[in-house]
C-alpha cells in the first residue's frame, strides 16, 4: 500500500490529518487510520488534510465521526500489515472482541454509522454494522423489522399484504 508509513512511530511523529465534521468539530488523526476510508485515502495521498487545512465531511456529524475514528484507529495497524497474514491469533481475537463491543451500541447510532461507513467507503466498518443489523432483524417479523429500522407505519395495503403473506408462509413465522 502506498499510504505513508506513519503508524509505526519509531522515530518522529506519525503524519497527522485533520477531519472536520458537519458541525464543525475538528478531529486530528493519524493519516494511516483515516486512510481506512477509501474516499479519504485518495485525498490524503494527494497531500490533503495536513497543516492548517482540514478535510470537511459535510455528511458526518461529530458524534458519528468520533465513533468512526475509534474504529479506524483500532484497525489501522492490522490494515497496514495487509490484514490477516501477519496478524497473530491473539491480535485477531482482540480485534474481534473490540468489534463485538463496538457495535453493541444504541440502535440510533448504528444507522448513522453505516451511512458514514458507506459514504466514506470503509469496507470493514460497513460490513461490521451490516452484520449487526442483520442479526437484529433476523428473528423479527416484517412489522418488527419496520419498527426497528424506523420505517413509517405501513399503509393499509401493505398491512394486508403482510397478513396474507403470514397466512401463506406460516412456517417462516414459527
Amino acid at each position, binding site marked *: 500500500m502506498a499510504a505513508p508509513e506513519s503508524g509505526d512511530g519509531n522515530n518522529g511523529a506519525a503524519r497527522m490529518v485533520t477531519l472536520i465534521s458537519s458541525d464543525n468539530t475538528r478531529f486530528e488523526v493519524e493519516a494511516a487510520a483515516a486512510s481506512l476510508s477509501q474516499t479519504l485515502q485518495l485525498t490524503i495521498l494527494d497531500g490533503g488534510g495536513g497543516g492548517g487545512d482540514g478535510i470537511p465531511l459535510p455528511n458526518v456529524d461529530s458524534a458519528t465521526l468520533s465513533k468512526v475514528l475509534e474504529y479506524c484507529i483500532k484497525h489501522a495497524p492490522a490494515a497496514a500489515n495487509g490484514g490477516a497474514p501477519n496478524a497473530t491469533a491473539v491480535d485477531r481475537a482482540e480485534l474481534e472482541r473490540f468489534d463485538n463491543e463496538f457495535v453493541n451500541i*444504541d*440502535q*440510533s447510532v*448504528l*444507522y*448513522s454509522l*453505516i*451511512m458514514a461507513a*458507506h459514504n466514506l467507503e470503509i469496507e470493514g466498518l*460497513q*460490513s461490521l454494522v*451490516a*452484520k449487526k*443489523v*442483520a*442479526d437484529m*432483524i*433476523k*428473528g*423479527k*417479523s*416484517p412489522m418488527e*423489522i*419496520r*419498527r*426497528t*429500522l*424506523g*420505517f413509517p407505519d*405501513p399503509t393499509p395495503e*401493505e398491512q394486508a*399484504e*403482510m397478513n396474507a*403473506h403470514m*397466512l*401463506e*408462509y*406460516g*412456517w*417462516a*413465522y*414459527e
Partner: protein
Amino acid sequence: MAPLRRPPQELPEELVEEILLRIPPIEPAALVRASLVCKSWGRLISSLRFRRRTSTGEYVARYVPASCPSARRRADDIRGWRVLDARHDRVLIRSMVHQAYLDVWDPVTGVRRVLTATPPLEYRWNAAVICAGHGSCDHRDCRGGPFLVFVFGANDPDWISLSVYSSETARWDRPRRVAELPEHGMDVVPPCLVGNALYFGIDLSRSILRYDLATRTASVTDQPPGSFGCFTVPMGMRDEGLGLARLKGSTLSLWSLYAYPDGDVSWVKITAIELNRHLPAGALPVSSDFLGCAQGFVVFFVGTQDGLYSFDLKSGMVKKVCDDKGILSVVPYITLYTPA
C-alpha cells in the same frame, strides 16, 4: 432500546443489500420475512442480482416443509405418485402403478409436464432430472425451462441401460448400455449431481454409479466398507466433491470421497452421530429404510416410529416435520420463489 432514528432518507438499496446478504444462510425464514418489509425489499430479494450475489445459493435456499400450506396443497396434486429426484426447480415423480409414468413437476407453480411413452422398465431402476442448460446455466432463473431426464434401468439381465428424455424434442432417445448390471440393480434413493456427473446408489448400497454428462460414460465406485444393505445417500459436498450419508442402525455417518493426485480415491469418514442421543425417546427406533439430507449435509431427515424428524447438524436442532409413517423417501427440494 430506542428504535433507529427515523432515517432522514431511506437506507440506500446497496446498504439494504449488504445487510440482507448477512442474514445467516441457515435461517432462510428470516429472508422470507424480510421480503415483506416493503416492496423495495421484496424486489431486491427476488432480484437476479441478489441471487447471484448469494453465490452459494444458500442464502435464498428455503425449505418448503410440510407446514407450508401452499406446499401441502400442491402435494395433494401428486398423491399416489412418488418423488424420485428434485433439482433446478424441477421435481421428477413417478406413478405408483406397474408400468410407471414419469412427470416433471414444479411444486411452486404447479405446472406439470407429462413425459410421453416412458420406456419399458423392469428390474430396479432410478432416474434424475436436470436443467437442459446444465454447464452453462447458473440455475437461478431457469424455472420452467427445458430439461433432461435420465433413466437408468435394465431391460436385459446383464446391463444397466440409459434412456434420456429431452423436453425440447419431447422424445426419448434409444436405450444405451452403460454399465454391467450389478446383482441387486439400481437402488431407489435420490441421486445427486456433482459438477458434471450424476451419482446413483446401486447394488443395495455396495457401489455408486457415476455417469459423466460430458463424456457420456459411466463408471462404478465402491461405497465405504460396510455399507452393503444400509441406507445410503450420495450427496454433493461444499467443495464440489462427492459425499455420502449412511444410516446404520441409529448411527448416521458422513463420508467424503477423497481423490489422491495419482487418481486413486478412497472414502474418509467425516463424522458419526448417534441419533439416539438427539431424538426424543418416543421416536425410537430410527427406521433405517430412508434418510434424506439437504444443504450439503447440514440438515437430515430421518424416519422414526413417531413420524419424520429433521435434524440440523450445525445447531443440533431436532424438529418433527410430519406425523406420516409410511414415507418412502425424502427428496429435499430447495428453491427460491418470492411471490411477485
